[in-house]
């Protein structure tokens, strides 16, 4: 709210970065102090989905679109039961929203959920700072307004990779979500039985659970440290590894379970899940300078050569060339790894590597902005994963077909010849077919 409108009713607040940069502003959520890693998200809408996304645990999120809160808060937009992020930075927060779905104003929501938030910040300047200096430690305070002091405390605060944030946001207990009845009817008509998926909930977004339910899966969400044996005892058709916060290398239990489960039944992973599956296959993990957080990242599916516009939220990613040497006979004779994976886009090849533990893995999706890997498919076992968010929430629905791909994989696995394998073409779905149709929406 503008100062001339608020008449000074909002207390002052300070945002301090590790590199010494400070921004003054006004408190617009809960009062207090928040320390975390500052990142920026370039989605123009979807602020409520963002603040309720558990993957932001440990982070202070800057929204690049300057006016936030315009359409208020709705129950439908919740991605978890609350908020997990450390703090929120915006340019201008709306106290008088308007939308038929809105039940309250966003600043009230932030305050009720204890989210420390600051407005009046030149978020573009902050974004450019993060772009050049990388994601870094930061703090928002409504108490300590002395820049020097707050910066000093930021530099003394722990780094994001020092803590297992997944343990904070993963549920303690299992829970079951039923499949969508519409999807079950559709499956029934085509002679396919209901599916059951066990989801490792490392901070799973509701949108994903809805995505799985929408393809006819009953979802049993389990804590991140559930042993593989327990999962197998639930007799699922497939296992899903969810998104989640922080450094995947902190989440060793889940990676171990992934190692045990891969090859025994169909597996699908999103975001952190993708990293965990890659770790299981022996890949290196790298931290991107400032990550991908937004709803406009172009990704090419190398199998269909179609581009999908994707929602993304990650700071860590797998290193494709660390997974193993190229398999020339499946990579059209190519033997040399290139770091910028757009190389493969230009060549029109979906390259395959041989991993030490889990057989051959194909690169299926590449980010066209920076050439980072966005999706992989295991060729010798029924599994695939993507770094981005097919459930969107917020963001474009282009990648929804990946849920269908998972269903196709599970169906094919069920019907496979004894001991036979599954044809890898389950991932070759045209993005246009995957977009939701009016009737479903």
């Amino acid at each position, binding site marked *: *709210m*503008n*100062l*001339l*409108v608020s*008449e000074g009713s909002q207390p002052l607040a300070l945002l301090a970065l590790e590199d010494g940069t400070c*921004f*003054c*502003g006004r408190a617009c959520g809960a009062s207090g102090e928040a320390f975390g890693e500052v990142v*920026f998200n370039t989605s*123009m*809408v*979807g602020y409520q*989905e963002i603040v309720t996304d558990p993957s932001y645990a440990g982070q202070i999120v800057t929204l*690049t*679109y*300057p*006016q936030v809160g*315009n*359409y208020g808060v*709705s129950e439908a*937009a919740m991605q978890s039961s609350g908020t997990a992020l450390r703090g929120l930075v915006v*340019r201008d927060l*709306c106290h*008088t929203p*308007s*939308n*038929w*779905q809105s039940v309250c104003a966003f600043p009230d929501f932030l305050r009720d959920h204890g989210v420390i938030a600051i407005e*009046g910040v*030149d*978020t*573009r*300047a902050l*974004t*450019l700072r993060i*772009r050049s200096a990388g994601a870094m430690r930061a703090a928002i305070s409504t108490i300590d307004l002395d820049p020097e002091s707050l910066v000093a405390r930021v530099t003394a605060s722990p780094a994001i990779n020092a803590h297992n944030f997944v343990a904070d946001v993963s549920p303690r207990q299992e829970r079951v979500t039923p499949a969508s009845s519409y999807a079950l009817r559709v499956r029934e008509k085509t002679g396919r039985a209901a599916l059951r998926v066990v989801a490792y909930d490392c901070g799973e977004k509701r949108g994903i659970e809805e995505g799985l339910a929408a393809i006819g899966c009953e979802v049993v969400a389990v804590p991140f440290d559930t042993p593989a044996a327990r999962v197998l005892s639930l007799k699922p058709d497939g296992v899903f590894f969810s998104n989640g916060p922080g450094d995947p290398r902190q989440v060793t239990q889940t990676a171990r379970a992934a190692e045990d489960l891969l090859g025994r039944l169909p597996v699908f992973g999103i975001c952190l899940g993708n990293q965990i599956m890659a770790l299981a296959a022996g890949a290196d993990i790298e931290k991107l300078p400032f990550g991908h957080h937004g*709803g*406009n990242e*172009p990704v*090419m599916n190398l199998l269909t*050569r179609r*581009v999908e*516009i994707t929602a993304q939220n990650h700071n860590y990613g797998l290193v494709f060339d660390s997974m193993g040497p190229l398999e020339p006979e499946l990579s059209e004779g190519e033997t040399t790894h290139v770091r910028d994976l757009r190389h493969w*886009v230009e060549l029109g090849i979906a390259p395959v590597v041989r991993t030490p533990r889990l057989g051959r893995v194909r690169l299926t999706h590449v980010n*066209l*902005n920076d050439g980072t890997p966005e999706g992989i498919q295991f060729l010798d076992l029924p599994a695939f994963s993507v770094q981005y968010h097919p459930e*969107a929430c*917020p*963001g*474009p*629905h282009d990648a929804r077909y990946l849920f269908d791909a998972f269903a196709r994989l599970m169906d094919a696995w069920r019907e496979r010849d004894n001991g036979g394998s599954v044809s890898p073409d389950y991932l070759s779905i*045209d*993005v*246009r077919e995957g*977009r939701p*149709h*009016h*009737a479903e*929406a």
Partner: protein
Amino acid sequence: MPRRDDLHKILILGSGPIVIGQACEFDYSGTQACQALRRAGYEVVLVNSNPATIMTDPETADRTYVEPITVDAVTSVIEREQPDALLPNMGGQTALNCAVALGETGVLERYDVEVIGCDLDSIRIGEDRELFAAAMRDIGLEVAASGFAHTLDEAMDIADGLGYPVVVRPSFTLGGAGGGIARNEQELEQIAGQGLALSPSTEVLVEQSIEGWKEIEMEVMRDGAGNGIVICSIENLDPMGVHTGDSITVAPAQTLSDDELQRLRDYSLACLERVGVATGGSNVQFAVNPEDGRVIVIEMNPRVSRSSALASKATGFPIAKAAALLAVGYTLDEIVNDITRVTPACYEPSLDYCVVKVPRFAFEKFKGTSEVLTTRMKSVGEVMTIGRTFEEALQKVLRSLEDGHDGLGLDEAALFDEKHFAELVALPTPERIFYVAEALRRGWSVGRVAGMTGIDPWYLYRIADIVTAETAIRRLGLGGMDREHLLAAKQLGFSDVQIARLCGCTEEVVRAVRKVLGVTPQVKTIDTCAGEFAAQTNYHYLTYEDGGATEHTEAARPRAIILSAGPNRIGQGIEFDYCCVHAAYALRDKGYETVMINCNPETVSTDYDTSDRLYFEPLTFEDVMNVIEIEQPEGVIVTLGGQTPIKLARQLEEAGVPLMGTGSDAIDLAEDRDRFSALLDQMGLAYPPSSVAATIEEAQQAARSVGYPIIVRPSYVLGGRGMAIVYGPEELASYMGEATRVTPDHPVYLDAFLEEAIELDVDALCDGTSCYVGTVLEHIEECGIHSGDSACCYPPFSLSDTLVQNVRDITHRLALACGIRGLLNVQYAVKDEQVFVIELNPRASRTVPFSSKASGVPLAKLAARVMTGEVLADLPLPPEERETGYFAVKEAVMPWARFPGSDVRLGPEMRSTGEVMGVGATFPVAYAKTREAIDYEMPSEGTVFISVRDADKRAIAPVAFSLAQMGYRILATRGTAKTLRAVGIACEVTKRVGEGHPNVHDVLAGGGVSFIINTPHGHDSRGDGAVLRSEAVSRGITNVTTLSGATALLQALAVLRNGRLSVCALQDLAVRQQ
């Protein structure tokens, strides 16, 4: 997929003249397309009849045909050039319609021309509402319940079924022409009747009204591989019911949640697939019910559009350029994002700012027409601005309009119509936004205003915030505001003028205080990606942020700032933008770093690669000074952007800004009537007797000494705004009553009106020591018709060489005497071989683009070079008095059909929106081409109705005689018939409107008239003639209101009867001249 190598030569169709609903956004898109395809190695052939465009510069395409966009002319071009492909989706509906016609007549097949970028079927589905509705139902999208009517009775039946109100939309008309909302049977009869008449297929859609729903547009692109992206969402502040071209629009959409927006994205992309858009950009419009989010598809345009130009400027994504490349085989992922240069064009722009567009209207020029906005577009231009918040962008955009507002209210003359106040809050008119703000200022609740207007409460809350801040500023006063307060005021978009008015001080004081407190604007960049990647281009806007972070970079080369022309309006259109673009090109070639300031999203000047740096900012003193202080230019050019920058010249010079070219004193000398008359006296040059008056009494006295009839006009105006010819004291009194409201600070000028004189327009260059006359243009219509509305010819077709030389000599002397450095334009009247000076404009004129194309001398570019100090002697100039071997004619395009109720006649006040050019071996051939370019088809047979005033009776005889010889039937009113019969011309007599039935009105209504020659009787605008002319307009019948125009038309008709006219490329004219 890489570029197609099987294509070599591509034909692009432009959109023809600027008309309401199809303006210079198509110059922007067409220019981008030409440049992109040439860079990709194709040979480009262009057809466009509009000379004021950058697109029709001989340098833009390889072969440029300034010819009518008709099947005949384009067929001739195809025969001559043998192109491999036709790209029709850059030139608006005109180009699409022409492409469809070329397909239907078999021309494309005969010459083996492939249509690229869209296919003809998709054009049909996009435009034919019945097919479109079926297609949308196919993919599960809801369309408004509706039915098609081909007769009035059918329309009535459908409306009865749907219930009133209903929306009427004619098929295949431009900008929704002929459409509207009917609330009852009477209104339906009127609107549907007109719509049926205007629709080429005599078809209207009668549709359930969804007035009050949110209107959202999605700008979408698709490539040949099937990749689809949304470039931008645009939300209309005005709800459904107002044409999007007449609405205040906001990008990105502000009041939709992610869920709602992504659904619209899914629908848009599905719509493109279903309609079958092969490649390129499209625009899909939706209505969203604010109560429950229900979505209805309104329409889609399978081509670049006004909205796509806006989306390009709003996001930095060059839609037209990308569309052109997609048409020749590239895919979106193969095209590089121009701005980041490291990421592909296959992504969706993210904005970290808010963009607001406001239309500019011209109702003051069309008295008698209703100002209520409907589904039929009436605006003549638009402005766009960028802010970090909606509030900031809204206030900036309202002060960009140049119609007396300094922002959202708090204007000098804040006059509200108290009697109709509530009505004017509720009704959509150009002024509604100010009434809405005033209502909130008066304490009306947001709920109440939302209920009355249908405007989403979110926008009203923001406006209420601005109003609250006004109170705070007024209470605090300038002294009571600290740095934070002043920053907060600037962040809400308050101009210094507004703050000064609230605090009771002057703009200069506010500016000084701001600077002391360190409240100065920062440079931000439009980068398509909200800061995620570094921008390689300098596309900027200014805003106020705490912290002082700026994205301004120092330049190695000296900088020159060019001030462009702001919103298109009648009298100041694309021609001035053209001059500014040329200056940018010329100065860049000379090693300058060029900086453009403008706020018109339709133009080439606001393309981020036209100049080295672009500031998308209002052209007010405050905003311009902000850029100047940041850029520290070597000079600022104020003489190419029309009256907009000229008005700032003195203030800028006083602030110590170096002007390039003609200085403010020279400008003042030419524009100050007294000083200029004194100069003419001193030089011994004739000019019509004139006088100045500030009051009615003074005016009456002055008029007596000058003698009636007189031309009266306010000082410092463009396009003859507020100008009139008055014939007696009563008329003068009523004029003075109104005129003083136009510009209270400036007096009124009274000039003797030279009846039946020939008017000349001269465009010339001057370097301070010598002068070069580029063109002498002879007007077709006589003195008294505004030069902008008159047709003109280069070279003069009826003047002696001696007289033309005399005019050149006078121009040389005047230019030097005034101290012009750059372009000037002089208007002369020639009567009885005597030359009178009417006025001198110390700046680029409206005719510069036409003059440049007609003469082959790029006047604006040369002017920019002169402004940098080059001398004419060193410039490549052909001799002034050379034989051309051809004639070039410019004709004005009038928007009568958009303004029912206003009098249809040419006069001293300019009303045309655009112009066309024709080139031919003779004057009649060139003029005939302009008629074809405007009307697309000339009536070659049938009945001509003639009714002329007494003064013209003698001269009409030869015209009528020729018409009769050509086989036209002649119908006349009694008086005219008497004259005609007396000289032996057979004609029929019809009754006047007041004389009972059947009268001339009935004949027109019966469709029995091909065209009309009707010269108005004196000053009467309410008589028989007015009814007649208005009827002609609503039926699309050509109507000539001057005798000189009739003579020219007659010659053109004669030429057209001899068969298809030959076409000629501009590039060949240059050769012919040498």
